[in-house]
Structure formats: C-alpha cells, structure tokens
C-alpha cells in the first residue's frame, strides 16, 4: 500500500467519508499488518467457534448468530445493546392488534438485497416458512405463528394465542430475511417437508443472499469466516471492508489482541482480562446467560434432592460470594432466572445471600445422612470464559461446608445433555441463554415446562405458580407483564428446584483503533456499526 493512499484513508476516516476513498482505491486493500498506525480496513476478530452453519434458516449458535446478523437483516432490530425495545429495520413500522394476536409490519421500500433486488413481503414469507419447516434449532421461534403477505410491502404475522413476545423475537439472527429468488434457485424450500427437500445449506455455507452490510466470502466451521462489505448495501456503508472471524482458543486470543495480531477478542475469561495494559480497550457487559444449579424434584430419581428442606439447605448453603469471584467483574449475581436486561427481571436486592446456619438447620431437618450426591455438568462447555469444571468445584466446596457431599460427575454435552433432558440428574449445573430477550422464554422453568421437567418437576405440582405463568404469557400490558414475571420468579425461588447463580459477563477486548463497539446479547456484535 503506498504511503499516499494510506494517508488518504486516514484522512477519509477522520472525515467519516471512507466510502469515497474506498471507491477510489478499489478493492485492492488486503489489510495486512500496518505499521504506520493508520486504521486498517480489515478487522480481525477472534472467537472460540461454536459454529455449525451459516444457513440463516438453521443458524442458532453464538458465532453463527454474529456472522448471520452481519449478512441477513431482520424485520426489527435492537438499537445498540438495548434489548428492551425492538426498533424498525427492514420493516419501517409495526403494529400489534389489541388482542395481541396479529402483528402487521410495513416493509421499507428502499431495502435492497446484495444483488440489488428489493426486499419484498414474499421474501419474508419464504424466509419465515423455511425456518419453520426445515425443522432446525430455531424452528420453535415461530411455533403457532402464520406468516402472510397482504401486499408486496406488508407482512402479517398471526399467532394462535396472544403473543406479546413476538416483536422481541423478530431481531433474532435466524429470522433474518433471505432473498427468496436466489435461495430457491439454490434448492431452498419453504414448504412443509423442507426438512427433507431443502438442499440449500451447502450453498449458504459458501455464499450469502441477504440485505445486510456484509456478504460471505469464505466459511469454515473450524478455521475462519471471511465477510466482505456488501457494495450494494442500502443503509450506511460499514467502515471495515473485510471482517475475518478466526477460531482461536481464549488464551491465544488474549495474546493476539494485546499484540495487535487481532483487533477484537470475544472470549476472554474474567481472569484473562485482568491487567491487559493500555494498548487495548476492555468492554464488560452482563449477558442474558444465566448459570444455575438444580436439585431434582422427582423422588423416584432422588429422595434426597427432592426434599424441600434439602433444597433449602442447598439454596442457602451455596457460596455466592465465592462463585461471584469466579464470575468476575461485569457479571451479576442472578436474583431470579430472568436476566437483568429483560422486562420482568428481579432487582439486585432480591438476590440470595448465604446463610450457613439456616442451611445447616435445613439440612439436619431434611434427614440427609451424608450420602454422596452426584452433580452432573457439561465438561466441554466454556461460556464467557467460565469453565464448568472450575465452577463445579467452587459449588462443591461451598456445599461441603454445609455438610453436603457432592461428587462431581462431568460428561461431554453429548452424554450429559440427554441425561439432563430426560430428567435423570440428581443435581445439575447448567446454563440457560435467553433464546430471545423476553421473559416469556423463562416460562420453561415452570412445572411441566421444558426445563421444569428436566428438574423432575411435573405439571400440576404447583397450581398457583402455573396460573401466574399462564397469565403472564398472554398479558399484553407491559407493566402488568413485568410484575407478573417478577411474582413468578419470587415464587420460583421459594418453591422451585432452581438456584440461579449468576449472569456471566461478556468481556470484549479490542484494539484502540476500534470504536463504537456495543455488546448486544442477541448477536454479540454488529460488525456493520464498528468504526
């Protein structure tokens, strides 16, 4: 790169008019390491991949969501990191019916796909039906929702029951809109039976067909994903012309970002993020991932853990302060299952404090006679730098002080998760990441709910709690919803088998050259907004 051009880019950046320079430079910028201190037009991002696919109809993992979000824009989005209020994107306006069953969205007619064609209601119908019918991880998002196009610019979403959570769900990366003409030509199918007939995943893993600021250049589930700026982007053009997302373990991420080998590291643990020096900026934000412990409610699985007194002993015997020291700066102790950024979250003051005397008294009252209780956890998961193995040892040490003998029983997810799903774990240490930023996602923790059943909590065992949940699910008034969800969590903390521990902290470390970074709990980072 010649000196003059480098300087030109520098000037252009400071003037906020990169676009013109880029056009002048063409796409020859390879963005190799730049010693001159100017802004690099390639951004190197490091992440521990959990990537399986780049197909927007199937994507559900963290890395996948981040990448898909850059390529496929949803109807509604969240501004920056605020997930409490959906705002327009491809839909310029939206309106819910009074009964909460019908959501009508008007599309922005200026929106264009990366091939220059306009985004229409048909594309939305195709994309949503495909998500439903390929029967992938995100299919549940649209359970009971019918998608229709009333005219080329209007989409109508009709739900069987009142669905106040729907606008919060639409910004999910899996609900990004796909160019249906291109997708169909590549074998994509939206009709029922698409789980067998859809053949487009391989194509989506090598190409993209969305309206986002970036398009896919190359994709590997283990090495790196390369995105390049969409030169037909209809919104504000992104600053970086190329984004390289590399799969790197977090200890190496730390070294790379400090040495400016990369500009953004996304998986540092709280311990690794200490004392990084002045060369980098550290952004800490609480996530919507809640780590929790549960005691199985089913006496057939364990007469010990299903005893309410034993549960009380665990609840008040956990070493919350010690656990928080592992969770690190930026993490928050979870007062309830619903994370603090969402409507209906409990206040920090509601969080439990350790009470060893109460725990010991409860344990004595439970009739526990010192038998070893296995605690299962997924040994191959590290989330936000929190290793389940280390956390489990901390939990174990806390309970040992109460007099509860816990035997750690780690297993890879493939072995641990079926046990958990089938409700066979006596004690389980797991996490729940919000599928979408709305408290209705946490109805799963009620008796008979998806997670409730995993803790051996059968439907009908706590009728008043179920009643609160049923009402919360269909309430459309925001204030009433919030208070219903808070009631639900207080009650859960009283009679439920779940002990919420903490919401982990997303620690993002970036070079000083990177600005405008905001962590978003749904898609981690919006590459298009980075400067």
């Amino acid at each position, binding site marked *: 790169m010649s000196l003059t051009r480098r300087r030109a880019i520098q000037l252009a950046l400071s003037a906020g008019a990169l676009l013109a320079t880029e056009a002048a430079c063409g796409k020859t910028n*390879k*963005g*190799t*390491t730049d010693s001159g201190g100017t802004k690099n037009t*390639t951004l*190197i991002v490091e992440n521990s991949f959990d990537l*399986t*696919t780049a197909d927007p109809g199937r994507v*559900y993992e963290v890395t996948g969501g981040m990448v898909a979000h850059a390529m496929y824009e949803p109807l509604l989005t969240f501004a920056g990191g605020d997930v409490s209020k959906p705002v327009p994107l491809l839909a310029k306006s939206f309106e819910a019916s009074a009964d909460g069953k019908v959501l009508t969205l008007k599309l922005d007619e200026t929106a264009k796909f990366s091939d220059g064609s306009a985004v229409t209601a048909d594309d939305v119908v195709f994309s949503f039906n495909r998500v439903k019918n390929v*029967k*992938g*991880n*995100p*299919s*549940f998002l649209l359970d009971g929702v019918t998608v229709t196009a009333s005219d080329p610019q209007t989409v109508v979403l009709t739900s069987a029951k009142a669905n106040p959570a729907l606008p919060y769900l639409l910004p999910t990366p899996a609900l990004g809109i796909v160019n249906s003409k291109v997708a169909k030509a590549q074998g994509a199918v939206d009709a029922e039976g698409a*789980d*067998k007939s859809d053949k487009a*995943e*391989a194509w989506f*893993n090598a190409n993209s067909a969305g309206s986002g600021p970036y398009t896919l250049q190359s994709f*590997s*589930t*283990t*090495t*790196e994903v390369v995105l390049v700026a969409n030169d037909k982007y209809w919104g504000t053009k992104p600053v970086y012309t190329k984004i*390289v997302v*590399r*799969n*790197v*373990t977090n200890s*190496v991420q730390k*070294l*790379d970002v400090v*040495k400016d*080998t*990369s500009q953004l590291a996304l998986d540092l643990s709280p311990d690794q993020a200490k004392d990084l020096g002045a060369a980098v900026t550290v952004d800490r934000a609480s996530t919507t991932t809640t780590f929790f412990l549960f005691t199985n409610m089913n006496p057939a699985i364990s007469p010990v853990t299903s005893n309410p007194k034993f549960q009380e002993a665990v609840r008040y015997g956990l070493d919350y302060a010690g656990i928080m020291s592992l969770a690190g700066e930026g993490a928050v102790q979870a007062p309830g299952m619903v994370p603090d950024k969402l409507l209906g979250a409990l206040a920090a003051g509601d969080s439990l404090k350790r009470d060893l005397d109460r725990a010991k008294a409860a344990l004595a009252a439970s009739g526990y006679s010192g038998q070893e209780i296995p605690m299962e956890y997924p040994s*191959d998961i590290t989330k936000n730098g929190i290793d389940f193995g280390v956390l489990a040892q901390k939990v174990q040490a806390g309970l040992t002080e109460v007099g509860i003998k816990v035997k750690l029983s780690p*297993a*890879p*997810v*493939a*072995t641990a*998760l*079926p046990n958990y*799903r089938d409700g066979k774990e006596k004690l389980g240490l797991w996490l*729940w990441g919000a*599928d979408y930023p709305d408290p209705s996602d946490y109805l*799963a923790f009620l008796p008979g709910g*998806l997670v409730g*059943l995993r803790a051996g909590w059968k439907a009908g065992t706590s009728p008043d709690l179920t009643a609160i949940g049923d009402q919360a699910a269909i309430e459309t008034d925001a204030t009433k919803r919030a208070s219903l969800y808070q009631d639900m969590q207080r009650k859960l903390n009283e009679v439920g088998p779940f002990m919420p521990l903490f919401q982990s902290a997303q620690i993002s470390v970036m070079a000083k050259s990177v600005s405008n970074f905001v962590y978003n709990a749904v898609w981690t980072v919006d590459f298009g907004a980075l400067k």
Partner: protein
Amino acid sequence: MRNVLTWRPRPYLKFVLVRLGALVLLAVGITLVSFILTNLIPGDPAAANLGQRALSDPAIVAAFRHQHGLDQPLPVQYGKYLAGLLHGDFGTSQRSNRPVSDELAEYVPATLELAITAVVVSLVVGVGLGILAATRRNSWLDQLLRVVSLAGVSMPTFWLALAAFFVLFYKLGILPGGGRLDPGLDPPPHVTGLYTVDSLLAGQWDIFGNAVFHLIMPALVLAAYTVGLLTRFTRASMLEVLGNDYIRTAHAKGLPGRTIVFRHVLRPALVPILTVAGLAFGSLLSGTVLVEQIFSWNGIGQYAYQSALNLDLPAIMGVSLVVAVIYVTVNFVVDLLYGVVDPRVRLQ
C-alpha cells in the same frame, strides 16, 4: 554392491497384493470398531448438535435422526456406510451437515504438512545424532546425547508446546503464535492443501515464507519425541552392526572410519530405523491432537477431538480410517524400502 537391478519383482507383487488385502480388511475393521464403539456410548448425537429447545421437540429430533439415517437399524446404517465408502462417500457430518470427505480434504493436509515436516526434522536430526553417538560411544558426547534423547522421549508434548508458546511467542515474540498463516493473509490457491507447496506452485513467496514461519514451532515441538526416539534407535542399531565380524574385518583391512560407518554400518542399521520412523509417523498423526489445540492448527487432531466429543459418527469413522490408511501405507512403503536396504528381506 547392493544393486537395485537385482530386485526380483515377483515376490514383491505377491507382497503388495497381500498387503492391499490386509488394508481392505483393516478398513472394515476400523470402521466396524468405530461404529460399535460410538453406538455403545450412552450419549445422543442429537444432543450434541441440537439446541436445548430443539432437543425437547420430538419432531425436530426425529427430523435430525431421519436426516442422518439414525432411525434405521444399526446393521442397515453400517451397511449403507460401507456401500457409500465403496463410492468414496464418507457420509455426512452430523455436526456441520457437510460431506465428511470435504472436511477431511480440509483438515488432513494441515496435519500432513505438520507431520511430514516433523518426520523430516526427526530423521535428519535423530539419525544424525544417533550416528554421532554410536561412533563416539561412551564419550561425554554420547552421554550428553543419551540424556538429550531420553529427555526428548520423556517430554510431555502438550507441556512442551505450552512452554515453547509462552517463551518464543509471548515473551520473546520471535515466532508466530498460532494458525497456519498470519490472520488476514489469504491461503494460496488450493492444489495439494499444503500451504508451503501450494504457495510455491502459485509463486507466492511471501505466503510460502509465512507458512514456513508458522510451521516451525509446532513441528519442532511435535518432533521432540521422535528425535529422541530415532537418536536412541539409530545408536542402538548402529552399535549392533558395529559388533559384527565383517566390521572388524573392514577395520582390519584399513578402510577409513567414515567409509565403514556410511557403507557398512548405516545401511544394515537402517532397517530398524526406518521401522521406527514409520511407526513414529503414525504416532505423530494422532499425537497432533495435543499440539494442534495449543497452536490453533486446524488439522485432523482437532477434528477428531471435536468429533469424538460430539459423537459425530461419520466424522469419527472417516478420520480413523484416514489415519489408519496413512499409517498402513507409510509402513508398507517402509517394508518395501527394506528390500532396497537389506537384500536378505528380498530373498524371503
């Protein structure tokens, strides 16, 4: 003296055919063992590949099982796999939904590049040091080399990798930390998948230099064990030959020491050395799993590790099969080389 022209091809042909037959049996055995083992595991591949919500939706789990043929009886599944294998189809990864053959084509060259480099380094350094030690038997140098080579085989690879990484990259910054190329550099056009070879073919000298630069640390770490091993065996096998009467005769004839070492000693000593080198190559292939993780080297070690954790059966079978075939092939080539090195083998 040992003329290649004295080769007699006929026993070799039979030898090759028997070996090929054994290879086919081995392939069946390997896949069968992987298949049985993976199915004995109480885990559920769906659990490793589906999200928490999807996993509790029977329709989605059923779709997943159907898509990957897991809803069929086990013998049918295995039969279909073998039938596919005959056509070069390794099945589809449950994790990524991509053909396993595509994934192998991506990861195998990365590991081969690393393992070949390590083996070449080991052969050159290990055999060299072994000769040195044998010819200066019981000298201080021999003792030193003994300690060094034993240290090489005693070194926990993963720890050495970590130490090298800490010192050479983190503290001193003289070698790159991880990956096959600097981030932001595009790999050379795909021909062999070995970046060093492909970059040369494309005439991209900068990429070649970068790829070599990235190879140094992981290859040396990986070679530590095999250098030690080869040094020990070269020394031992040289000493054994040196004890033979004809060497004494050669000395008595007044032949110079160098001639004796290279013409009369090294050649017969090469048989066990080659064997060990062949075996070492096999151990390098699977041993890379520990090194690849630390150096972010996306080879079959990492792939195997991920696949085993995810119970991704087609991937496990594919990677085991490839490693086994490479291993058997290398050892087969070694056996063929015996004939070149040692005519007694040819006469059998």
